[in-house]
């Protein structure tokens, strides 16, 4: 069984193998297909039209399926690798070991935001940004720019306490757990972390930064934590909702998986802590 671990607990060997699997997916071109898919959904998911990957109830099951597919790709390179998660309520500064040269590398330099250390730095020539929205082909970050702060544990708890998964109008204006976690309303958890990292993470092509996967693995864990805390709550809406993925509707681009299929993560992986 695949066990997803807190990135702060990984051994040097586990970090090295995870990084090497990322670099191999990048070298083969498989990595960039994930970036393309994500950006395509970011640009087409709208509050008043069809919405699948973002700003809608299926934000959580869509990304769960997306991460499972990515984890499978990593494991096809190295079966020992699993997706680590980044608990940004605990590892909340640019001095975290997450950003060290032996793992993801650090923040970008002042002049142009370019990441200059670690395996994904431009100088290593192993991480060219191919799927991009502007002319820059190097990884950029601006960790904590402008004095921004990552969400706190108390803010996470306030979202986990919500009993209702999601509410009409099932978009960025909704009340409920999903939208407070996604971040269009209230304490703003997921969106704020994208902005805190900056660079490509703030754009529609955010999976260009490998930290995307560690961030979303934690968002995914928070969904599992919420499920454990509210066993009588379930995914909403149930059926018959225009432009929105109901519990039993299939999700693009796979068209063979529904939110109902994604409710039990333990069929695919577990976490290193009791959920």
């Amino acid at each position: 069984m695949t066990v997803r671990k807190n990135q702060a607990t990984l051994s040097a060997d586990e970090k090295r193998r995870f990084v090497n699997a990322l670099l191999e997916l990048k070298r083969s071109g498989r990595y960039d297909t994930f970036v393309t898919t994500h950006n395509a959904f970011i640009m087409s998911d709208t509050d008043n039209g069809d919405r699948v990957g973002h700003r809608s109830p299926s934000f959580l099951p869509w990304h769960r399926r997306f991460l499972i597919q990515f984890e499978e790709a990593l494991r096809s390179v190295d079966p020992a690798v699993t997706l680590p998660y980044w608990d940004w309520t605990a590892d909340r500064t640019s001095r975290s070991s997450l950003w060290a040269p032996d793992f993801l590398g650090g923040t970008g330099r002042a002049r142009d935001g370019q990441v200059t250390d670690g395996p994904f730095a431009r100088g290593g020539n192993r991480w060219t940004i191919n799927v991009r929205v502007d002319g820059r082909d190097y990884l950029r970050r601006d960790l904590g720019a402008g004095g921004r702060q990552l969400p706190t544990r108390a803010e996470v708890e306030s979202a986990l306490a919500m009993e209702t998964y999601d509410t009409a109008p099932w978009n960025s204006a909704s009340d409920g757990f999903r939208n407070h976690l996604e971040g269009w309303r209230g304490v703003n958890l997921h969106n704020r972390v994208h902005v805190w990292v900056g660079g490509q993470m703030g754009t529609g092509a955010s999976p260009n930064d490998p930290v995307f996967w560690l961030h979303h693995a934690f968002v995914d864990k928070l969904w599992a934590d919420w499920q454990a805390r509210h066993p009588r709550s379930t995914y909403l809406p149930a059926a018959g909702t225009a432009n929105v993925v109901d519990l039993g509707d299939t999700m693009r681009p796979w068209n063979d998986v529904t939110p109902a299929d994604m409710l039990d993560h333990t069929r695919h992986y577990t976490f290193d802590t009791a959920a």
Partner: protein
Amino acid sequence: MSSITRRRALGVAAGAAGAAAGLAAAGSATAAAPRATAPEAEPAPASFDEVYQGRRIKGGPSHGGDHHGGHHGGGYSVTIDGRELHVMRNADGTWISVINHYEPVATPRALARAAVRELQGAPLVPLTLA
């Protein structure tokens, strides 16, 4: 490197994902998604045309069909040095772009300025693949 349209990009995306899912028709379904409309209660934002930090930024009602990049700004488009910035209006009337996707701002002008600051002189490009 070739620039590709959104429809093509979605086809590529669906094909990539479809390698596992066995599905290739998702692209056309998405490309045919209806254009979003601005919330009825929100007034149409003002047009603007200015030079900001050396970049020409323009915004106003858009005309014509759903060509490259698509329009989800409720019939409003923004350009930087003549190149389209993909923008989207949120249900609460705020705005995001493909450059600043996760941080809504109040107006298209503020959105264009935020993109200029983020670009640090780099040109916008249509979604590209190597």
